[in-house]
């Protein structure tokens, strides 16, 4: 046969059908292969070491509480919990929970965990919060009574965090023994982790999977390629640019939620940014739709107020649009603050992550429109964090997610009385806001609490201690055959690993 151009084109078109049998890894019944975005640096239960580690922690550990797929609190090691007065919380442990060494989970174990987390030499994420415990009582082996130094309505949320996994008090040093649905069987350092189901897990019939293989794919495009090639069944952190092609492919399902968000921070110790009117002018000048398009390929939505999710009971449709794009108002505010012709400043972000850099570029252009000339500074992430913590910037771009969907999680971002951090503005105190946030944390009446947060939102709109930019879509993608896995709502997206206990394949 003569080689003609037509034959070549036909052969090219036929290529996708030329799949070699057996070249792909075959699915093993009951085994799910999960493509992680990073190899977890450590799976010690209490310290924060990132979201990939969080997924693993949710597989091998359980805390007192967790969340259901609607985002409501639910019992785990504790089957009931209630407050006694404003300061005490009582957790009633379920009778059948056992650690991986076969020993029952007792009140003494819980007490020991909380003491370790609060200890002087602890590196736990909730160290400061647990240091707010005045005493822990264990009247019997199934009851834990926690008395706080001051009233805290969000203690159950803290207990539901993946940083609050409870391990056996008899764990050897450095080898925590958890009570989660899976056990780590082996690992290929830096590459993959093999987990098997724990046969004495306290929920009957769970986990549904027999085994899990977690494989780290640091490159986002390769992670998608691995899913498309059938190397893995489920991936996290789906890159925004790949979401459309995954949605269009009938072999896969895409599950996304708007959870994490981008925002602006300010150094308020000097210059025009110390003036709330200037910060508010900036808030009104940003073309947020462009950020959603440029940084997230349209996969997100504008954030025009305090970051509270639309499905939250604390959401207020009016207040959440308080920073609508309005360049005329922005110019008026600038003039009122004594900068009718704008001023020069700089924006700190990082070139290491595209979403930070792209966001910063749109902010730069938006500010130029109202006369603010900003120079971009884009060092690597480590330097960016260091400069942020030391206040060596004027305006900074950051992206984060709150610890849970309760607005109390936002205190971390807006409370200027806390120690300097790259997630908060530098040297920016709003005493009225600090008061309101503290009040809301101690308020057990839901209606009153909603009212306090409404006031807090008004103060945030006025003072602009941070400026919201955009919600970003957080996505998981999986093969059609995967069932039971669910992307949890809002900032709980990073808790989705908990649904792996109900996940099945085939």
């Amino acid at each position: 046969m003569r080689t003609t151009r037509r034959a070549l084109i036909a052969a090219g078109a036929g290529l996708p059908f030329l799949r070699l049998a057996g070249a792909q890894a075959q699915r093993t019944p009951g085994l799910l292969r999960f493509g992680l975005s990073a190899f977890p640096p450590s799976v010690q239960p209490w310290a924060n070491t990132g979201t990939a580690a969080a997924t693993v922690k949710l597989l091998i550990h359980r805390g007192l509480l967790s969340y259901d797929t609607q985002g409501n609190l639910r019992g785990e090691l504790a089957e009931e919990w209630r407050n006694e007065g404003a300061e005490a919380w009582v957790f009633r442990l379920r009778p059948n929970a056992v650690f991986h060494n076969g020993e029952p989970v007792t009140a003494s174990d819980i007490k020991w965990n909380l003491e370790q987390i609060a200890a002087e030499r602890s590196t736990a994420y909730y160290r400061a919060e647990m240091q707010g415990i005045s005493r822990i009582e264990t009247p019997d082996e199934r009851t834990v009574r926690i008395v706080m130094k001051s009233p805290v309505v969000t203690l159950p949320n803290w207990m539901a965090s993946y940083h609050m996994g409870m391990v056996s008090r008899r764990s050897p040093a450095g080898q925590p023994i958890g009570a989660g649905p899976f056990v780590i069987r082996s690992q290929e350092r830096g590459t993959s982790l093999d987990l098997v189901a724990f046969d004495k897990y306290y929920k009957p019939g769970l986990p549904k999977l027999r085994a899990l293989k977690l494989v780290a794919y640091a490159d986002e495009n390769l992670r998608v390629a691995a899913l498309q090639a059938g190397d893995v069944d489920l991936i996290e952190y789906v890159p925004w640019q790949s979401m459309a092609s995954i949605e269009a492919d009938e072999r896969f399902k895409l599950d996304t939620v708007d959870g994490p968000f981008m925002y602006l921070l300010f150094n308020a110790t000097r210059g025009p940014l110390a003036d709330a009117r200037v910060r508010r002018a900036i808030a009104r000048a940003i073309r947020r739709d462009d950020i959603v398009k440029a940084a997230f390929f349209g996969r997100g939505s504008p954030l025009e107020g305090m970051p509270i999710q639309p499905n939250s009971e604390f959401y207020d449709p009016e207040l959440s649009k308080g920073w609508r794009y309005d360049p005329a108002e922005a110019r008026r505010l600038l003039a009122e603050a004594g900068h009718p012709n704008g001023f020069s400043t700089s924006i700190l972000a990082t070139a290491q992550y595209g979403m930070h850099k792209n966001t910063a570029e749109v902010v730069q252009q938006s500010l130029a429109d109202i006369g603010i000339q900003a120079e971009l500074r884009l060092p690597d992430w480590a330097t960016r964090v260091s400069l942020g913590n030391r206040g060596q910037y004027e305006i900074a771009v950051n992206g984060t997610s709150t610890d849970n969907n309760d607005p109390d999680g936002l205190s971390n971002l807006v409370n200027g009385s806390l120690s300097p951090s790259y997630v908060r503005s530098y040297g920016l105190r709003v005493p009225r806001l600090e008061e309101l946030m503290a009040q809301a944390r101690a308020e057990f009446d839901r209606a009153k609490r909603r009212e306090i947060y409404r006031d807090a939102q008004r103060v945030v709109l006025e003072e602009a201690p941070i400026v919201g930019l955009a919600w970003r879509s957080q996505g998981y993608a999986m093969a059609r055959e995967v069932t039971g896995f669910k992307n949890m709502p809002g900032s709980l997206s990073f808790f989705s690993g908990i649904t792996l206990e109900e996940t099945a394949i085939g």
Partner: protein
Amino acid sequence: MGWAARRIGVSLLLVWVVASIVFLAIHLVPGDPAELLLSSGGVAPDPGAVAELRDRLGLNLPLAQQYVSFLSGVVRGDLGTSLVDEYPVLDEILLRLPRTLELIAAGALIAVLVGIPAGTLAALRRGSAFDRIASGLAALLLAVPVFVVGTLLVLVFAQILRWMPAGGYVPLAEDPWRHLTLLALPALAIGKGLVAVVFRMTRASVLDALSRDFVRTARAKGLSPSRVLMRHVVRNALIPVLTVLALHMGTLLGGTVLVEYVFNWPGLSTPLLRAVEARDYPMVVGIVLTISALFVLLNLVMDLVYAALDPRIRHA
């Protein structure tokens, strides 16, 4: 003997200088490993926890003291432990270096198997269609960045054809066939640049050898053309080719990072990149020290071999 001892001494000095520069440089770059680790995921860590971790990792000691303990560790063969997960740096290197060497060796094998015959043929048929197409292709291979080639290979072989896994690693002992399948694409990506280099070097070198007097003499005394080609032309032409190949392989020790990243190959470059990002000082210094020591060793061996072959070098 005195010359060799001096040469070895200079090499050791060189390694010490490199180690010291890397040690100082990475410590002087802004960024705090304890802060970074506990800030993973964009959250604010508790300052008390950061202070405690800094203390535990020995980061609060004066830099001079950290430097001295680092040097005394190196002398004892101890490169310290990772600041991220307290894993011994030396164990990490011993685990991952063979994988990077394997990748480089596989790439070099492809380069030799393709580049040398193609280069020889191109030289013999100088100016022919084959020569022009192959030379053009070599220029293209050199010009296209390795991450483009890598991504295209994944797209075609893993995503469209689905002949190969998209990337990853399985130990040889666990599953030899899958190990080699996973090695194929990254080896091709590494090999593509080397093929071009070997091809061009072979072509030039064979052309040069063809015009030498000894080739004319060999032909004149009636040797068969294939014998002239194999025994006299190619053998002589290969010496510079192999020297260049060896040098390129040396630079690849730290230069496989993009390929390892694109194909998820857990070699030595990936932890180096991660370690720089996380400011994991002992890991960065340990890996760079290993790579530079290997490079210096390679040069030292070459020097000593040349000196053994050519007395003029020893007395210069």
